[in-house]
């Protein structure tokens, strides 16, 4: 019946309606598999429900969709052939690394082929003298640092999922970590990429030199969430491992004093390697969980890490202690050994799972604000927390203004999830109003599509689509992610956690 109605419609409209109503037709899927067999080993094509199921989501498990097919090419030529084929057949493609992303960027689409880069897991070259490494996109973030540690070198960006997440995914999300303030994001630590366009063209961007001719396409690829090209090789910058790192923990009887201390440290001309803050609820949860030695009666604590040569660490630690004392710290502790340093960090790194024990569910926000807005934003969150009757634990990358408020709730209580989402929506809007951003490091993916409308107007969104079309005019590569169409604006994003069970519970979250 539907088919009969459709035949009267314009071809384009018909196509889009069919698309909306039907998963990929059996015949088309069979033809695609037949053609894929010509370019891939049979073991690299997954087509059965059991095989496809594990790919239905990434680290944001509330959004699920089983794809039409999953392919796992082993060589650039194979990946290229897959893209050429999908481009010719007008089949959508979603690239995927380790699937640890927190915004649904690698969530499949119903009619899409998931292009897994899992088999691209080789370190191709390590240049000790030039301090660079050429790696395949499926190499894990931490594996790079491990492979070069005997040379006294490391790869600086350290997203919390670094034992599992891949460098290709890091580039796609422009991943951060705890040390961004001093060492930058992924975009600051990558020198070159090889990408495949949706048409299957292999393009080299940069290499081992510090810049390239033409537009900075290398920067544009970072954080493009798999919409512009598929990354098949990454050249990263390696840094000499600092001689020493020390951390100071300072407690405050007032959150605003702690916020002020963050500004004071920066004003004193100090650039900490890490500068983190936790509020009372987060401290208590973390201390009960990790026994890091935090004072549980404090309203806030700061963790300020300094690294460098032993001389400069000692100079700056003295300066940091002075500033914190002056800012009204009620208690201070400076790590005297590597094990003490790790212990002081243990509580912060366990903060998410620790908070997860306080309530059946929590909802993690990822907004950024100017540091000066911190007291105002915190006060407002506290007011809303009372209004909604939902407790909030706050952990921040305070040095760069990236906040992760964790709203505690119980999804089994009728209406509570909705209230939590409303609350979250207001926090992200407040971030934008305060001069910040709806996402500091988790990405937009499918999760924050609606919040994008809060941050950007129609002209900007159209410009984003124009950039997308410049790379992929048929919008076949990870379509529908990262940039919302003009008419959608409703829900707000979240990292949904049920009963304290995080996706990838083995990973540290901070």
């Amino acid at each position: 019946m539907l088919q009969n109605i459709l035949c009267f419609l314009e071809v384009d409209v018909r196509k889009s309606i069919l698309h909306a109503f039907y998963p990929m037709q059996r015949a088309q899927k069979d033809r695609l598999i037949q053609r894929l067999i010509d370019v891939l080993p049979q073991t690299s094509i997954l087509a059965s429900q059991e095989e496809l199921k594990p790919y239905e989501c990434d680290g944001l498990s509330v959004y699920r969709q089983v794809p039409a097919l999953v392919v796992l090419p082993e060589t650039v030529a194979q990946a290229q052939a897959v893209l050429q084929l999908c481009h010719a057949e007008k089949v959508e493609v979603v690239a995927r690394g380790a699937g640890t992303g927190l915004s649904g960027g690698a969530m499949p689409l119903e009619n899409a082929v998931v292009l897994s880069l899992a088999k691209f897991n080789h370190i191709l070259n390590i240049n000790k003298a030039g301090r660079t490494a050429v790696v395949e996109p499926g190499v894990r973030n931490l594996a790079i640092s491990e492979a070069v540690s005997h040379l006294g070198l490391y790869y600086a960006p350290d997203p919390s999922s670094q034992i599992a997440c891949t460098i290709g995914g890091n580039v796609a999300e422009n991943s951060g970590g705890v040390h961004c303030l001093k060492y930058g994001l992924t975009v600051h630590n990558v020198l070159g990429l090889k990408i495949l366009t949706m048409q299957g063209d292999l393009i080299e961007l940069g290499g081992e030199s510090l810049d390239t001719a033409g537009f900075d396409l290398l920067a544009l690829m970072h954080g493009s969430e798999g919409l512009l090209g598929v990354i098949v090789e990454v050249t990263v910058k390696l840094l000499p491992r600092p001689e020493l790192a020390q951390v100071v923990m300072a407690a405050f009887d007032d959150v605003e004093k702690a916020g002020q201390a963050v500004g004071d440290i920066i004003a004193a001309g100090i650039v900490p390697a890490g500068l983190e803050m936790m509020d009372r609820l987060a401290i208590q949860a973390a201390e009960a969980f990790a026994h890091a030695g935090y004072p549980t009666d404090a309203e806030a604590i700061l963790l300020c890490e300094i690294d460098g040569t032993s001389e400069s660490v000692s100079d700056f630690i003295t300066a940091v202690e002075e500033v914190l004392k002056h800012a009204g710290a009620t208690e201070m502790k400076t790590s005297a050994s590597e094990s003490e340093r790790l212990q002081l960090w243990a509580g912060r790194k366990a903060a998410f799972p620790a908070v997860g024990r306080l309530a059946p569910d929590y909802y993690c926000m990822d907004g950024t604000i100017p540091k000066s807005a911190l007291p105002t934003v915190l006060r407002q969150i506290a007011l809303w927390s009372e209004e909604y009757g939902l407790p909030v634990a706050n952990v921040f990358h305070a040095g760069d203004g990236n906040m992760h408020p964790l709203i505690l709730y119980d999804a089994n209580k009728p209406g509570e999830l909705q209230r939590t989402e409303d609350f979250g929506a207001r926090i992200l809007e407040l971030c934008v109003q305060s001069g910040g951003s709806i996402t500091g490091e988790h990405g937009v993916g499918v999760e924050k599509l609606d919040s994008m409308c809060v941050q950007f107007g129609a002209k900007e969104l159209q410009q984003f689509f124009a950039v997308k079309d410049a790379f992929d005019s048929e919008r076949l590569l990870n379509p529908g992610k990262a940039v919302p169409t003009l008419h959608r604006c409703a829900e707000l994003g979240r990292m949904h956690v049920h009963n304290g069970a995080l996706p990838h519970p083995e990973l540290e979250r901070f």
Partner: protein
Amino acid sequence: MQEAILRQQIEHACMAGTALNIVGGNSKAWYGREITGETLNVGEYTGITSYQPTELVITAKAGTKLSDITSALDEHKQRLPFDPPCFGETATLGGTVACGFSGPRRPYAGSCRDFVLGCRMINGKGEVGSFGGEVMKNVAGFDISRLMTGSLGTLGLMLEISLKVLPHRQSEQTVMLEGDFSDAIHAMNHWAGSTLPVTAMAADGSQIYFRICGTASSVEKSVKQIGGHLYDDGLQLWKDIREHQLPFFDDERPLWRISVPSDAPFQIMEDMHEHDWFIGWGGAQRWLKSELPAELIFAAAKHAGGHATLFRGGDRAGERFSPLSEGEMRLHKSLKQAFDPEGILNPGRMYRDL
């Protein structure tokens, strides 16, 4: 000066298909290819719009003089970490970012684009948009403000730019060691791989210069470790290198900038004369005075793993930047189309067909 006037001029040019030549302080008119077009003057669109030292972020209008920005930062003992050259007193923030210029500190602190956090801009259709922002971590939307950096005004007119800034060094010292270029490349890469706070390295063929910045005690230790002689006026030396005021740069011949991996050997082409070269960026940026044909220099730079720019002098009508691959050029053209469909913004400034 009103933003509306700039927007109107672009809208009119878009409708009429008139090429525009964007000018800030006109201090870098010699850079890139020579173009003709109606002047779009941004030099009067000035002012620091926000600067809170504890945020480590400054936002200013594109026509603001670079010198005004550095003095505002100096007052709070902060600086632009990428150490941009001015090449003249009239240099503006917009021009600096549009050229993507960075100074001697670049390999150790990061480049101009690394510190661009956001911009407000007008595209070739006269549409105003804000991208990025004033916070350090921000992954909402494509990174258009970094794409604008170094695009020579061919994608849009930047109105306002936000940059991350950092505190000044506490102490600084410059030392020099004797060595030819090959020794220099080896030594510079060696110390870049150490934990010492080296923030600039250069070589002129007979001496290798190292700048060390940090707390007094760490500088003292580093100076001892590197050895050599203390250089008396390090501040002036690095300023002269950055601004091309060394006698080396006083020459009639075309000046080439060759960007290669820092450990690329000195000998990247046949028949090299040491006195025609100056090496900066710890080996990664090499200056060459040469009348050789562009194709030859482009090919040598490519062979060494990098690219070349005819920086000053030479043929302003020919190509001045290393040729792009076919795939890259296709993306460049489609991006140009995405921002400036009528091709009115600085057409041909970067590449003849762009």
